[in-house]
């Protein structure tokens, strides 16, 4: 056991001393800072552009809807109603007017044109064509103004007085989104998505990076033949175990630095944003209890043991970098498969897919924390998931130790599946 400690200590100290460790440990907080400050900068850009008013409205409703739209678009803008042109015309004149408008848009004189016929008043679709047809913010703005204008017109048709109709139609609804969990109110829904994203990306990157570090370490020991000297002094499982624990400890050190700096950043976010001259968006930090933190840690540790022992087994099987890349494919696919379902799971965290993936040992370390970040999960479900990952890890370690013991002393070509099966039986 002393020797397992010696191997673990070497693994840890040699890695912490490298420049790469220093770099990636510093890079984490920079990444955090970007995550926190970029959204603030981006939200400034989600307002509609001024171009949205530079359109022509082809109005065949006969109820001055076009003029109302022009008024609506000028509100809060530069206040220049002349930017929006309104053509009131008969339904039969629409087609030629559209082709004229199209030419103007191509020439660059206009951004787009809007077609309103009498059917629009009955709730039928309204057509818009323009250069900014795919600009989300512009279309949101336009849609709102058109809706309000149509509603005004319809209210008047129903006999509401003109001055009342415009007030009624401009009923604004702004959603303040808030999550309610088992413990009561808990921050905004957007925050939990960002939080989930951070957790998933971090877990995925950590599993991938530290798994690869174990792989490289094993390959180095095999290629330089150091392994032969070491396992003539200690049982091979101690060399394997020391490496997995040592690299894992490096990972936890790094995560600890990242989390600490993340918390500091949260704390000093406001003054930091002020200094950068960015308007701070109200931001409620996700409220993570100690219990949840602990569960996350358990998932990370179990997932790490699972993947790193598989990576180690591959490292012991192969003799070159290229072989390693090939042999790694199945393992990388397992890891990636839990990551690519991020979107569907996030939007439907209670679906069958989400449930299944949070119980399978290879995807649970990523999917379960993801679900936990967005919805409350029953304690027993978390327990089942953890047990599944732990059992998976146990099997992975068992497999890896056997492949490792034989593989470390075999040079030359990569073993076939049949040879691997024999290693497992005889090791």
């Amino acid at each position, binding site marked *: 056991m002393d020797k397992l400690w010696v191997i673990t200590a070497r693994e840890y100290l040699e890695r912490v001393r490298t420049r790469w460790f220093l770099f990636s440990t510093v890079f984490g907080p920079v990444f955090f800072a970007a995550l926190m400050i970029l959204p603030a900068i981006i939200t400034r850009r989600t307002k509609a552009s001024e171009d949205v008013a530079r359109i022509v409205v082809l109005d065949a409703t006969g109820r001055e809807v076009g003029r109302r739209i022009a008024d609506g678009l000028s509100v809060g803008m530069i206040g220049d109603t002349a930017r929006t042109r309104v053509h009131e015309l008969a339904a039969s004149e629409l087609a030629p007017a559209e082709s004229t408008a199209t030419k103007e848009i191509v020439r660059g004189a206009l951004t787009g044109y809007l077609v309103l016929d009498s059917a629009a008043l009955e709730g039928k679709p309204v057509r818009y064509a323009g250069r900014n047809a795919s600009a989300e913010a512009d279309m949101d703005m336009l849609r709102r103004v058109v809706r309000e204008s149509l509603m005004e017109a319809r209210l008047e048709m129903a006999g509401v007085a003109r001055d009342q109709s415009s007030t009624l139609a401009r009923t604004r609804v702004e959603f303040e989104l808030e999550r309610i969990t088992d413990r009561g109110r808990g921050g905004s829904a957007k925050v939990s998505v960002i939080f989930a994203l951070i957790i998933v990306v971090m877990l995925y990157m950590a599993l991938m990076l530290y798994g690869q570090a174990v792989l490289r370490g094993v390959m*180095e020991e095999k290629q330089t*033949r150091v392994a*032969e*000297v070491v396992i003539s*002094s*200690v049982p091979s499982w101690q060399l394997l175990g020391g490496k997995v624990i040592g690299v894992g400890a490096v990972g936890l050190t790094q995560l600890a630095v990242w989390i600490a700096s993340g918390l500091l950043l949260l704390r000093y976010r406001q003054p930091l944003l002020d200094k950068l001259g960015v308007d701070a968006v109200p931001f409620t930090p996700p409220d993570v209890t100690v219990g949840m933190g602990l569960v996350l840690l358990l998932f990370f540790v179990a997932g790490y043991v699972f993947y790193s022992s598989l990576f180690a087994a591959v490292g012991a099987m192969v003799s070159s970098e290229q072989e390693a890349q090939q042999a790694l494919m199945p393992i990388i696919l397992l890891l990636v498969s839990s990551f690519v379902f991020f979107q569907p799971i996030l939007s439907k965290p209670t679906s069958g897919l989400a449930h299944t993936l949070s119980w399978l040992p290879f995807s649970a370390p990523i999917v379960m924390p993801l679900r936990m970040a967005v919805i409350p999960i029953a304690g027993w479900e978390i327990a089942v998931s953890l047990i599944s990952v732990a059992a998976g890890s146990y099997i992975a370690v068992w497999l890896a130790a056997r492949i490792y013991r034989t593989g470390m*002393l075999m*040079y030359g070509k990569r073993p076939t599946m049949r040879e691997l099966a024999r290693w497992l039986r005889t090791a």
Partner: protein
Amino acid sequence: MPATTPAVEIQNAWKRYAGHVAVRDLSLTVPRGSVYGLLGPNGAGKTTTIRMLLNVIAPDEGTIRIFGEPNSKAGITDRVGYLPEERGLYRKMQVRRVLRFLAQLKGMSAANADRQIDGWLERLALKTPEKDWGEAKVDELSRGMQQKVQFIATLIHDPDLVILDEPFSGLDPINAQALKDIVIELRQRGKSVIFSTHLMDNAERICDSVCIIARGEKVLDGSMADVKAHHGGRHVAVVLSNGTPAGVPPILRDRTLVARCEDSNRMLEIELAPDASPQDLLTRLIGTGATIERFEIVRPSLHRIFLDRVGAAGVEEGMTGHG
């Protein structure tokens, strides 16, 4: 522990792999305080034997004891130093840290290891008043210096049994000499050394006892003197000083006189026919007018014994690398 306990005792060890048997019913005893040669062609099973001895791989059958203890006993390999055939160290690690690490794996404390490291670095000229290579990283060292570091790693914990697998392969002459000096010094201090090689000349000069294996099986073993005495045949070493007169080759082909002759250009190693006397041979050689520089009745060389007993068939094609 009684002084008579052998350093190593292997009894009826077998190791089978998929298509072949690497070691077949091998038994051997390495006496304490001797230099023991494990000889055989490439692919004979030398490295497999050593790995079983070190408990790196388990034999399918048989028992292996080191200093009277089962080799699986915890801590017994702390008394063994091993220099593998394929050598390597952690490239990015500082020399001193590598040595400390390997010493700790053999059960030394870090402080004790550090004391030994300096002595060894100085002894092998890796630490001089101008430059301390112990502070450098392994991959900053030349190949020769890395080999020296590897010797230190093998010997730093003052092992009672030292196993050297093909130690001279890839060594420059200076390091080869340094290694021979170390082996001799170890023996003088009563340590046991196992020496695996396919180079018979080296083994002949260094080993007290030998075991020749081929195709996984023991061919013969015993002390050098016994092996030579039992091999039988009377051998004569002949050196002619000025070329070979025309009359000499027919004499060497006379099977009533010469059973076999190996011509190594400068020297002839002649095995006499069963009833022939060296006297007759000498008389007939002088009769050809040859000038005789050396005529000596000798023991057969290890090389000769090896070829006689293992033969060309012992060197299988394509079985290389993993002795």
